[in-house]
């Protein structure tokens, strides 16, 4: 009995020991598995390549979870390829080599990684020779497979981000003698999940690095500056153009800078000249959450150098799969050259328009100076010699009107002498541009007339400037100065070219205005020369003329009048050549002298008019002339017979005690058609009666609703004062008072009054004086 009991105790002891040993082994295995799963996560270090990551994972899994591990993946594709093989046990190396060289089993067999990938489901396979025979591709292959001593295997899909990346194959062999169970498959699935994430990251980083490298090559070569910022605003990448533009020596410096640091390097202004802040640029807007900020044109001034550039900034977002901002790509295009030339062209066009708009060149030059500021310069001034030994400022401009006041005051208190050795005076003298990119201190001191002056000059804040001559006709009439002050901008050669062109145009404008003024005074003299200042004294007749040309300034009138003696008596002419200016002046001369020449010889108005007609027809331009010609006969029987020839002209008026009547009859205009004939009519003028000749500027004077017209003229004549001069003045005043707006045509009124005879008083000793 004791022996049996002892045997049982020994047996049970052995049993317990065996159970204990088994559970100990299982605990150890569980611990190893947990530790292995943890270790996979560690393998997911983004800096490792796909190959290294896969091997790390395989090292973790073998021999902790399996005797063999094979990882196939599509990452880095195309197709499924073997990326890691790890085998535990003797003959590991040759076997690893065999497996590595072996292509993944065709999916049609239903086994292996490709089948798993295709099905998307894990497989647990208890191996036997029949399976090996199914998948073997050759006898050699079969021998190799059999030599592996496979007992069981699991093939689990590797999936991450919703995509299958490959498979994880774990194998038990004769080395451990184990067979996998469903519980192992569960663990292997967990392992595969973690392994997939690790591999995904490895692939991702590699893809990204590849992509970055390719992109880097492409954008490295661009002229445009490109930078890539992360969501925190730090610059992660900058191409060489960006490094240059931002003024760094190399990209590393740029990457090291804090996001805010970069913006401190510049002052940024919008197209309208208003300052912009960091928040306004497109990249900042993107970082702040604005979705699609539009491109922005800005003027950027480098605080350190004062350099100013026009840049178009564009920012584009790169977002991750959740739509969160991952990167900001900035493209910065330097459009300075284009913008500057556009600006220069615009300034030149506007300046030309301003200069042409008026003859008042003080006004137009002020406008030009204002156009130049602030885009071309901080200050702009125009000065001319005043003819008394000093330089006078004609125009001053600055963006701040208070500073303009200051500058004008300065100019008035300390006028620059015309013989000063430098500055504006020198430019006017020599006609050569003076450009100073930096104004040295001692120069300012030398230019100042006293300490106070120097202090005020410094108050202008001049940093640099240029003075160009105002030139016209080979002479320098003045100077235009551009000054850089608070903006610190530098003038370049293109700026100088623009300033010189402005100087030329301004010079021409001043020249033209002066010539025009001269022309006006010449013209006025000419006018006087063309018309008799006073009518000659005609016996028996009192005469008065009123003549008022319409045109402003250089417009010589088209009206003319004349009175001269002929064999048949005095001839008086009033005429109108249509038009103004030099041509009209010439025609009036032609008309007067042609008529005079023939009439003085022949005493025949018709002949004179006929000759004038022929001469005018020979003119290159059509030159119709209207005129009234009155030939005054001798006093006979107490009256004068007059021959009136009226050619396309308002008929003369006779002012008599019983009223005002029209005399003469219509005859054709002169100088338009050949083969015409003119008719005269005979009238009688009694002593005291006044013959009035006038031009159509009188009756065509525009009033509020209608024209002055012949009725009003007759009325004015009827109610006029007694004296002849009074009569004409009255008419002139009536027209003037009636007229609305500017005078549009010349006015001429010629009044001839036959003087009353001296009548002897009956019985007086005074004898009648015969009137010759």
């Amino acid at each position, binding site marked *: 009995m004791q022996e049996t009991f002892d045997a049982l105790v020994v047996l049970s002891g052995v049993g317990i020991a065996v159970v204990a040993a088994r559970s100990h082994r299982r605990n150890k295995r569980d611990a190893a598995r947990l530790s292995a799963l943890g270790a996979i996560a560690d393998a997911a270090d983004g800096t490792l390549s796909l190959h290294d990551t896969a091997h790390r994972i395989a090292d973790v899994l073998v021999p902790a979870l399996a005797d063999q591990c094979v990882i196939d993946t599509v990452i880095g594709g195309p197709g499924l390829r073997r990326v890691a093989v790890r085998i535990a046990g003797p003959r590991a190396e040759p076997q690893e080599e065999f497996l590595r060289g072996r292509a993944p089993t065709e999916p049609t067999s239903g086994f292996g990684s490709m089948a798993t990938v295709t099905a998307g489901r894990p497989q647990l396979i208890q191996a036997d020779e029949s399976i090996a025979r199914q998948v073997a591709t050759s006898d050699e292959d079969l021998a190799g497979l059999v030599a592996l001593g496979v007992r069981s295997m699991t093939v689990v899909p590797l999936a991450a981000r919703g995509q299958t990346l490959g498979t994880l194959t774990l194998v038990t062999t004769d080395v451990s003698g184990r067979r996998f169970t469903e519980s192992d498959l569960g663990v292997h699935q967990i392992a595969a999940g973690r392994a997939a994430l690790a591999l995904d990251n490895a692939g991702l980083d590699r893809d990204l690095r590849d992509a970055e490298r390719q992109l880097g090559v492409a954008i490295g070569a661009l002229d445009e500056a490109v930078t890539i910022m992360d969501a925190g605003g730090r610059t992660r990448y900058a191409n060489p153009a960006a490094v240059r533009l931002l003024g760094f020596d190399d990209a590393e410096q740029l990457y090291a800078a804090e996001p805010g640091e970069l913006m401190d390097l510049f002052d940024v202004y919008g197209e309208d000249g208003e300052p912009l802040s960091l928040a306004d640029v497109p990249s900042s807007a993107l970082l702040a959450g604005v979705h699609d900020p539009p491109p922005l044109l800005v003027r950027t001034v480098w605080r350190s150098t004062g350099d100013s550039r026009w840049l178009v900034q564009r920012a584009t977002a790169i977002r991750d799969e959740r739509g969160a901002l991952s990167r900001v790509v900035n493209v910065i295009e330097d459009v300075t050259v284009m913008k500057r030339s556009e600006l220069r062209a615009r300034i030149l066009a506007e300046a030309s328009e301003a200069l042409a708009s008026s003859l008042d060149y003080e006004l137009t030059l002020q406008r030009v100076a204002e156009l130049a500021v602030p885009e071309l310069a901080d200050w702009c001034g125009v000065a001319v010699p005043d003819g008394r030994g000093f330089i006078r400022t004609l125009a001053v401009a600055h963006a701040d009107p208070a500073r303009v006041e200051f500058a004008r005051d300065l100019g008035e208190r300390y006028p620059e002498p015309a013989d000063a050795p430098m500055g504006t005076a020198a430019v006017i003298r020599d006609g050569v541009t003076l450009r100073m990119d930096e104004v040295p201190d001692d120069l300012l001191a030398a230019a100042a007339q006293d300490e106070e002056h120097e202090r005020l000059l410094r108050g202008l804040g001049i940093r640099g400037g240029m003075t160009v001559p105002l030139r016209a006709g080979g002479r320098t009439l003045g100077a235009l100065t551009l000054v850089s002050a608070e903006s610190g901008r530098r003038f370049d050669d293109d700026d100088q070219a623009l300033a010189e062109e402005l100087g030329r145009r301004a010079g021409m404008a001043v020249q033209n205005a002066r010539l025009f003024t001269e022309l006006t005074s010449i013209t006025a003299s000419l006018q006087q020369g063309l018309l008799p200042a006073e009518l000659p004294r005609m016996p028996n007749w009192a005469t008065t003329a009123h003549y008022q040309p319409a045109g402003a300034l250089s417009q010589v009138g088209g009206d003319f009048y004349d009175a001269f003696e002929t064999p048949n008596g005095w001839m008086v002419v009033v005429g109108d050549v249509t038009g103004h200016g030099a041509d009209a002046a010439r025609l009036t001369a032609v008309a007067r002298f042609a008529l005079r020449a023939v009439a003085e010889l022949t005493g025949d108005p018709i002949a004179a008019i006929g000759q004038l007609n022929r001469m005018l027809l020979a003119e290159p331009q059509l030159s*119709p002339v209207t005129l009234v010609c009155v030939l005054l006969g001798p006093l006979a029987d107490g009256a004068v017979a007059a021959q009136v020839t009226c050619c396309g002209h308002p008929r003369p008026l006779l002012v008599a005690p019983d009223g005002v009547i029209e005399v003469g009859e219509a005859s054709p205009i002169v100088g338009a058609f050949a083969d015409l004939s003119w008719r005269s009519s005979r009238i009688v003028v009694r002593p005291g009666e006044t013959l009035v000749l006038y031009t159509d500027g009188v009756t065509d004077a525009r009033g509020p609703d209608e024209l002055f017209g012949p009725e009003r003229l007759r009325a004015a004549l009827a109610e006029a004062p007694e004296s002849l001069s009074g009569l004409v003045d009255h008419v002139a005043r009536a027209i003037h008072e009636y007229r609305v707006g500017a005078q549009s045509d010349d006015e001429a009124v010629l009044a001839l009054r036959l003087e009353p005879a001296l009548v002897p008083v009956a019985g007086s000793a005074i004898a009648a004086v015969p009137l010759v």
Partner: protein
Amino acid sequence: MVPSLQVVTEPSPEGVRVLASGELDLHTAGDVTDALATAEAGDPGAVVLDLSGITFIDSTGLRLIVAASVRSTRNGNHLSIVPSPAVDRVIDLCDIRGQLPLS
């Protein structure tokens, strides 16, 4: 503000008709001159200068009519002028009715 002169050029069965209405004077004559020049350049059969709407005409306007008439005689174009009362007055004042192709 209504312009003081309105000029319209339109095709007519015979050729071209230039209609001017309003005031024909120093300031506005240029528009009619231009319209006539364009019409004549197109080598039309006949040009009608319709001035029936002219309310005021001064020496510049008169000169325009005379010039057009002289031109048509020289070039052999067929011109006819339709006067208004204001135009008639001026033509009679200048006594050139017989010289102008009035219709």
